[in-house]
């Protein structure tokens, strides 16, 4: 198992969470979300985003509207829904619990 593969796996797990976090701040295009992630040093390829966005939209967590673009075909402008917001709260809690748990394991590991 190489490190890149393991890293990619970890990232994929939190990607859905990150998408919701970005959209919680403000509505955005898919490319905006990518950029926000890149700024925060979360490197992902663009392609992996689209399936996640569509699935979250179908699950009712996001909605979008079409915006015309001078640079090509119309683009989807995503926004977080009510459901999405409450789901995000749940995920926040899950994340905190997860981090706590991992930290505990780390500290007991380094002490041993």
């Amino acid at each position, binding site marked *: 198992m190489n490190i890149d593969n393991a890293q*990619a*796996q970890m990232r*994929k797990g939190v990607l859905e969470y990150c998408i919701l976090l970005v959209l919680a701040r403000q509505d955005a295009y*898919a*490319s905006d979300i990518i950029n926000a992630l890149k700024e925060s040093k979360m490197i992902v*390829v*663009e*392609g*992996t985003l*689209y*399936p*996640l*966005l*569509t*699935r979250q*939209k*179908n*699950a*009712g967590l996001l909605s979008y509207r079409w915006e015309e*673009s001078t*640079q*090509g*075909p*119309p*683009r*989807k402008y995503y926004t977080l829904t009510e*459901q999405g917001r*409450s789901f995000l709260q749940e995920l926040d809690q899950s994340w905190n619990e997860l981090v706590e748990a991992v930290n505990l394991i780390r500290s007991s590991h380094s002490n041993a």
Partner: protein
Amino acid sequence: MKKTEKVNIAGVVFNLDEDAYKRLHSYLEALRKKFGSGSEANEILGDIESRIAEILLEKTQRRESVSIEEVEEVIRIMGTPEDYEQSAETEPGTDTPRNSNPSVQRRLYRDPDHSVFGGVCGGLGAYFNVDPIIFRILFVALLIAWGFTFFLYIILWIALPQAITATQKLEMRGEAINIGSIEKTIRDEYQAVVSNARKNDGWDRVRNGIGEILNAILMVFKIILKGIGLILGFAFTIFGLALLFAFLSMVVVQKPLITGAFDDAQFYFSDLVHLFMPGTDTALLMAGVILFIGIPLIAIVYWGIKLLFKFKAQDKWLGLAFFMIWFFSAFLLVMIGVSTGERYQRNASVEKNIMLDSLNHQKLVLEVGAANLSELKSGNSVFFEKEQVAFYYLRDQKQIYGRPQMQIEKTDGSSIEVRVSNEAQGKSYSDADEHASKITYNWNLQDSVLHLSPLFSLPQGEEWNGSMVDIRIFMPIGSQIYIPESAELIMDYAETADWSDRHELGGKSWKMTGEGLIELK
């Protein structure tokens, strides 16, 4: 120099170099394979194509055609198909909660998420993949037409389990059971609960309350039914076994069928067949009867045991096979029945008439011989005696004896007339005639004395074929007759003025009048 292909990506027209086109095409095909088909997959691929169009527009602003390097660049940005590996596999790619996946095993549950009372219609809807409202309408309509539908609903409520766990809910809808689908089910439930919590007003609470009460009542019913089920299972087993045993001992082991049930009668099954169903293969008939009666009995015992010990078995094919055999045996019996019926379809009789000279003979004296009944009813014989009808079959000699039937009637003629008919049946008239002529009945008329034999007989080995002997005495008004007591055995009917019982006829003289026979003192 390169060839170019003109393509349309997300509505934007591009000119791609031939090799660029091939690369992009195979890339998009690989993605389509990963995502499959379905509206969700199409959305995702649409988004990807839009983005590809955007990127390409940016890159080729000053040039006419897209080169393969640019396509490679696009692929690098968007991600190779391998990058999509994980995300394409963790989700099942279904876009509707009620899908029609036929390959996973479907089970009928009650659906608590789509329930008005108990989720019966919801469960039915999930199983058949239609809107439960259809079943609700069906139930209400049937209820109006036929009240029993209410009990049908209750039975379903009791019999069907509720789909509680995610796995059960997936089974109910016939969806694949993997981590992704379970997760999705839980998520769907969560959202449904959240949106329902806001709508829960007074009416819903009332419905819930009723539902709870009904559930409690039904629990009680269930327990009672289980108890009944056990008792039934036990009863079926015992009953079935008893019948089976009795039946087998009768038919197979050749014990007498009925003794003492018909005023002295003794039957053996094979004798019955031989006598009354001429020409029938006894073995075949026996096999048919055993199967016809035995298979249902075995089935009853089997179901009884199943109910009692509550085990399931893969016995559909076995059951089908047995049913086929039973059906065949029924068919066989019908055929035998039809062919037997054919043998009795024609009647014939051989008659002999004697008229007494009216001047000299106005009184007839009957004399009926005595029958050696002890020999006829001995150990190795089959016989049937009921009132005045009797048949005897001596098994060793294979010979049949029977009682004739006598009738005394008024006639308008002037002479006493005695008519003796030997009657029999057969497949055709000539066949029946042949059977009739085989009957041996001894009687004669000397002066005014009519000597009658108490029994007629058939030749050895001859089958019954409906053989009967009929004696008719026609008496004009004014004529007289002496009836001995021994004649009571063969008396079928005498036209008496006061409807005397046949047991009152014997040992007396009678005179025929306009109203019938009256006793002469």
